[in-house]
């Protein structure tokens, strides 16, 4: 009798080979360049796609199983958090504005990243990077969904989050993260991988997710914290993919080095400008601070990033030159950003406030070279005026940078008393920039950036009013019409925290939960 021998199971390596490279084939009746039209025009030369190393060797079947398990745990915790009124355990209701910033500024980017990685994956002829991009694409849409689900509980109780996706597309300051990602997904697949995969996910990610997640942990927001931990294993995979992409491209051809260097220079700066929002969140919006923006930059960029670029030196890649200017700005960035949102509190989807005495002391201790000299007098004046019922709401629209789309709030490197103005003449029009780096990015691809959808200019062109609005009627109030277009309710979603419904409700609900009233 023949013995039944159990069929030998595939080993991990063989299984990976079958499930990725084994799925690829060489076309016989279509030309490669017709199937992969985007692969050559950026100037990157790839000679051997099989040199791609797959750091994780994750296959699709394992991916589904693993992610499903993680999400079951995440949703169990979110349910527990919601059922126990976890929102009332946060340090203080000001914290919730951090969540508003996250859901309208960051979560929509996860969704765009999903699209971007799907597109890049489709564009690459190599099966290794294609599968890696597919998984990251799925991660990103899962992150968008789990963030929306984690945060939706806050939306039941607090203002400003009701239409976060529309806010992302329309509200003036959200054009900063939106245009950053639009710039990346409209680039070629290699630039996309360097911009998002490497510069954003590898170099800057610790300055984006760690502050939000540890901020949530420090401030009693278990829902958001759990989401962050759940995403952590994916983020580790994204970082590894980002680094692998860079090394692969650089090893393929020496002619790739200057192109990649330019992209790293550009995207480190673009990403850093978006992090302006995180800087002010860390220094102003977390009632219980984790660390200052300056400390975070020093640890995560100057130390960790410094080591990374030392490692990349053997490929001929240098530290981006913008790092010098960023070092000069680190004493000022968060204060200039918070001042901006204090100015334009009537047009934002979250509340702002002046720091109290203890918080000013914290800021002065963290920023001894800048806070008392440049920012404290401004804040004290605003606080006095607010106490007299004359809270400052800036109602005139600001001048924006053509590239990063941030109002021209940044001061000259090395002189915090002078706004930094840069300009370029191009095809008969003037274009203005907040910095040498934003100017250089424009000068390299002016045809792209002249199309920028700058919110201030769009408002003045009449494109940001609800359909059917007639701006020529007597008594037309442009700010009211713009808020309506943003779907923000004046007096509810905007203005100072002190007069907000959020503040009042939180105090009342927490009182009910902790006292016998």
């Amino acid at each position, binding site marked *: 009798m023949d013995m039944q021998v159990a069929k030998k199971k595939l080993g991990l390596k063989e299984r990976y080979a079958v499930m990725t490279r084994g799925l690829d084939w060489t076309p016989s009746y279509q030309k490669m360049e017709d199937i992969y*039209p*985007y692969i050559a*025009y*950026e*100037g990157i030369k790839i000679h051997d796609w099989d040199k791609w190393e797959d750091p994780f060797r994750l296959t699709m079947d394992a991916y589904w199983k693993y992610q499903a398990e993680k999400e079951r745990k995440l949703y169990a915790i979110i349910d527990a958090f919601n059922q126990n009124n976890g929102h009332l355990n946060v340090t203080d209701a000001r914290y919730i504005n951090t969540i508003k910033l996250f859901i309208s500024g960051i979560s929509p980017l996860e969704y765009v990243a999903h699209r971007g990685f799907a597109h890049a994956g489709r564009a690459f002829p190599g099966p290794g990077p294609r599968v890696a991009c597919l998984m990251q694409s799925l991660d990103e849409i899962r992150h968008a969904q789990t963030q929306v689900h984690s945060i939706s509980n806050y939306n039941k109780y607090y203002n400003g989050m009701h239409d976060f996706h529309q806010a992302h597309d329309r509200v003036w300051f959200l054009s900063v993260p939106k245009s950053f990602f639009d710039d990346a997904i409209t680039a*070629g697949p290699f630039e996309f991988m360097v911009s998002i995969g490497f510069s954003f996910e590898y170099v800057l990610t610790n300055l984006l997710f760690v502050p939000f997640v540890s901020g949530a942990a420090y401030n009693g927001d278990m829902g958001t914290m759990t989401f962050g931990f759940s995403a952590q294993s994916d983020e580790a995979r994204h970082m590894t993919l980002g680094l692998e992409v860079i090394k692969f491209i650089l090893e393929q051809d020496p002619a790739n080095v200057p192109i990649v260097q330019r992209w790293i220079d550009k995207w480190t700066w673009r990403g850093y400008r978006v992090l302006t929002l995180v800087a002010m969140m860390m220094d102003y919006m977390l009632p219980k601070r984790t660390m200052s923006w300056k400390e975070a930059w020093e640890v995560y960029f100057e130390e960790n990033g410094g080591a990374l670029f030392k490692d990349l030196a053997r490929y001929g890649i240098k530290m981006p030159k913008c790092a010098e200017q960023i070092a000069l700005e680190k004493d000022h960035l968060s204060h*200039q950003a918070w*001042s*901006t949102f204090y*100015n*334009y509190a009537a047009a934002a989807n979250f509340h702002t406030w002046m720091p109290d005495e203890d918080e000013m002391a914290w800021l002065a201790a963290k920023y001894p070279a800048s806070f008392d*000299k*440049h*920012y404290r*007098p*401004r804040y*004290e*004046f*605003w606080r006095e005026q607010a106490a007299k019922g004359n809270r*400052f709401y*800036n*109602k*005139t*629209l*600001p*001048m*924006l940078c053509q590239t990063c789309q941030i*109002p*021209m*709030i940044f*001061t000259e490197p090395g002189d*915090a*008393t*002078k*706004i930094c*103005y840069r*300009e370029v003449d191009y*095809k008969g*029009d*003037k*274009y*203005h920039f907040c910095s040498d780096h934003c100017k250089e990015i424009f*000068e*390299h*691809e*002016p*045809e*792209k950036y*002249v*199309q*920028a*959808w*700058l919110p*201030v*200019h*769009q408002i*003045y*062109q*009449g494109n940001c009013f609800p359909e059917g609005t007639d701006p020529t009627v007597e008594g037309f109030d442009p700010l009211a019409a713009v808020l309506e277009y943003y779907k923000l309710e004046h007096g509810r979603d905007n203005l100072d925290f002190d007069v907000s419904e959020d503040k009042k409700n939180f105090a009342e609900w927490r009182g009910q939960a902790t006292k016998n009233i």
Partner: protein
Amino acid sequence: MSVAALKAYDFPAADTQDKFHGAQLLYIGWEDHLLFCAPFAFPFPPTMRFGDVVAGPMQAAFGYHPDYAQIDWAKAEWFKSGKPFAPDFDKSLAENGLRHKDVIRFRTPGLTGIKGSCS
């Protein structure tokens, strides 16, 4: 340099003057007064008198600052694209040589913001 693209890449600029319904953009910044976080952007008809810009929209935009009421306009120093500029208050923006998306700044000697902090 120009953008890398698969085919001809030619799209209209978003902010040319023809899109502003007869107005042109003018950016105005007040030196040493960073209480206003950034320079302002205004849409003005090119025929608007420079003095009317100062008395109307600039008063509305900058008037919150206690220094604004103390400005001696005869002593103010003006800059256009960073270079000295001498506007004639009685002439129009166009007659003063101001074109779409020009940026002007003014310095008010002796006035340096809240407690001299340039705020």
